[in-house]
């Protein structure tokens, strides 16, 4: 299934970061908190190695590309999976194990790596 509350918002023209800052009531407050964390680049690179078993920069089949997505979009998607707002067996299992620091580090990493 695609799209939770947050990911649905992101399809508009405004950037997702703006939405996060503009209207806290529409999104989970966690997203703004995570966006405020200073991401640890080394940790992000290490954590990302779990994801690249499935997420390739040249995706095929039904695993979407996450490389170069906006940081806030990745944060939003992972939060949605973590709280079950967006349902998917694999991604919920993975996201439920991620703390805020981990989500921040991963989102930063994938938003910048090609």
């Amino acid at each position, binding site marked *: 299934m695609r799209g939770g509350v947050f990911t649905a918002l992101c399809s508009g023209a405004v950037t997702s970061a703006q939405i996060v800052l503009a209207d806290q009531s529409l999104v989970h407050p966690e997203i703004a908190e995570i966006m405020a964390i200073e991401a640890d680049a080394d940790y992000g690179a290490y954590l990302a190695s*779990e994801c690249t*078993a499935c997420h390739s920069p040249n995706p095929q089949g039904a695993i979407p590309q996450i490389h170069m997505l906006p940081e806030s979009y990745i944060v939003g998607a992972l939060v949605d999976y973590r709280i079950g707002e967006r349902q998917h067996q694999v991604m919920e299992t993975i996201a439920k194990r991620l703390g805020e620091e981990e989500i921040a580090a991963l989102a930063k990493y994938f938003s910048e790596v090609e």
Partner: protein
Amino acid sequence: MKLNRRTVLSGLAAGSAVLAAPMVMAQGAPRVVVVGGGAGGATAARYIAKDSGGAVNVTLIEPTRQYYTCFFSNLYLGGVRDMDGLGHGYGTLAADYGINVVHDWAVGVDRDAKTVALASGATVPYDRLILSPGIDFKDGAVPGWDVSAQSAMPHAYKGGSQTELLKAQILAMPEGGRFAMVAPPNPYRCPPGPYERVSMVAHTLKEINPTAKILIVDPKANFSKQALFEEGWQKHYGGMIERIGPDFGGENVSVNPSEMTLDIDGVVEQVDVCNVIPAQKAGEIAHAAGITEGDWAPVNAADMSSKMDEAIHVLGDAAAQGDMPKSGFSANSQAKVCANAVLGALTDSRVFPAKFSNTCWSLIAPEDGVKVGASYEATEEKIASTGGFISETGEDEATRAQTYQESVGWYAAITSDMFG
């Protein structure tokens, strides 16, 4: 590092510039030697080379020039994938990652001298050794079968030519013929693998030989994703597949490869194809290195180091690590934890907490995919599961097609994660 006589001689033969090389290496970069260029070994070599940026000297020892994945080999048997798509070379690892790829067999490990002996006679020194040799078969596991019988009764449990042979035999079955599988006891590589194979063989037979029958002889009372497979077999291949479990003699089987018969608890069955998947153990080199206990090599979960030698790490199928199934996904996941730990030990890079995951997809019929998976952490004692998921019986076709398409994405991603 001690310069052995062979190194000096080969250096001399090639001229003085080359002679200097071992000396430079002795004072310079730490050396990691990886044995086995499969799911665990290729991943570990690539991550160590990539993340060290040249600060670590990585040698990968692998006899074959083309690695044929076991994963998706059942899809080849089902006509869903071709063999070419399963083959992967080591060129990118050598050219883009600077890995010294040596196509040879490791035949011994001298743990005191910290060297690996190769079949060619060469000796390769290491600071850290990573073994990911996969599996070998236990002698005498299925009476009447040994590797000399693998042409008559293929295992097809190592990739490549064995898989092609099994497929050729299936295609040559007489109309209404019989395919038998002798399934392995736990633990073995890829728990759902034999049952995905039965599904894919059934799919091929349904297309070209619909009156053919499949017989599974199984020493296990239960098997991975059983409810999902049995539901799918009923739905797609009703009446074609019969399974004999331990209650009816499934653990008391011997074979006669020249007669093409199986003896199941005293009852002799004549078959046309017999796929024998014997009981398994860690690849021979792990035993030769003296780091096994029983059939497998016990490891510390935090860094995949051997419990018997902290300069050796064991990945993938060969390791006794705890809760993870022996899968390509697991081996790849363990390799990244190991790479991070090895880099931390040899350079000043940061070491992060071990964290593992696995998902195994299986294809029951084209577009009817199922999955099982879990996350894991390192405890003092073992790699321990922190929770998982499994597909449900009765899922709709769209969900199953989506699940299959995920496996397509995973195959592309993991093979590029391994081979660059």
